C-alpha cells in the first residue's frame, strides 16, 4: 500500500491505495497515529484509490476516530467506493463517521467543523 499525504488549509489529507486488509492496515495505522501524535487535529481520509477494506482496516479507523475525538479533533472520510461503503454499512460504521462524497466536500466540512 502506498499512502499519499497532502496538506490543504490546515487539513491533512491521507489517501491510502489498494487493499486495506490484515497485511496492509498497519501502514495506515502508522500514518494516522503519526499525524495525530504530531498534533494534526483536522484529518481527511480519502478512499478514492481503495479497492476494499476488511475489519483490520475498520479497527484502525475506529482507534483513530476515538483518539481524535478525545483530542477534540475532526475526522472526515470521503470517496468511499461501493465495496468500502458496503463493509462500513455491514459493520454499522456509517453512523460513526462523517462521510462526504468527494475530497473537496470533505475539506470544506473539515475546515468548517
Amino acid at each position: 500500500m502506498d499512502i499519499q499525504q497532502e496538506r490543504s488549509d490546515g487539513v491533512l489529507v491521507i489517501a491510502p491505495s489498494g487493499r486495506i486488509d490484515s497485511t496492509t492496515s498497519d501502514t495506515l495505522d502508522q500514518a494516522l497515529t503519526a499525524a495525530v501524535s504530531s498534533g494534526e487535529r483536522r484529518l481527511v481520509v480519502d478512499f478514492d484509490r481503495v479497492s476494499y477494506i476488511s475489519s483490520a482496516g475498520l479497527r484502525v479507523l475506529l482507534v483513530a476516530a476515538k483518539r481524535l475525538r478525545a483530542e477534540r479533533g475532526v475526522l472526515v472520510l470521503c470517496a468511499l467506493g461501493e465495496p468500502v461503503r458496503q463493509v462500513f454499512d455491514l459493520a454499522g460504521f456509517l453512523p460513526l463517521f462523517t462521510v462526504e462524497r468527494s475530497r473537496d466536500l470533505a475539506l470544506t466540512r473539515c475546515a468548517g467543523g
Partner: protein
Amino acid sequence: MASAPRLSVCVAASPAGIQQAAAALDGFRAEHGLDDSAAWPLHVALDEILSNIVRHSQTGPEAGWIDVTIERRGDAVDMTVTDDGPAFDPLQLPEPDVTAPLEGRQPGGLGVHLVRKLMDRVEYARAGGRNRLTMTWRPPA
C-alpha cells in the same frame, strides 16, 4: 483450454502466508474472469478467516500451516480453509453490537460478522483433528 475449476495452496499461518493466499485468489479470479469489483467479498472473507487463524496460532511454539482450496461450482465459488490449530469454531463467537455509539465500540469481533454477511453460506466442521471452514459466495444477480 478450460480453466481449472479448483485451486489448492498451503500457506504458513503468518502475514506472508495470508498474502500468498490472497495472490492465489487473485490468480483464480483472473482465470475465471471474476473481476475484483464484484468478487471483493471473497478477498475480505479470506483475510478475516486467515488473520483469525494467524492471531490464534501465534500463541503456539511454531506457526502452523493453512490449506486453502478455491473451487468454482457453476456461478458460485467455494472457499475451504483448513488449519491444524486447536478446535475453534468462529461461528460460535457472539455477534458484535453494530449499533453502539463510537465510545462503546470495541475493535474486534467484526471480522466473522462480515464473513457471515458477505458470504452466502458458511459452515464449520472439526474433522481429523483439523478446523475446516467452508464458505460459498455467489455473484450478485
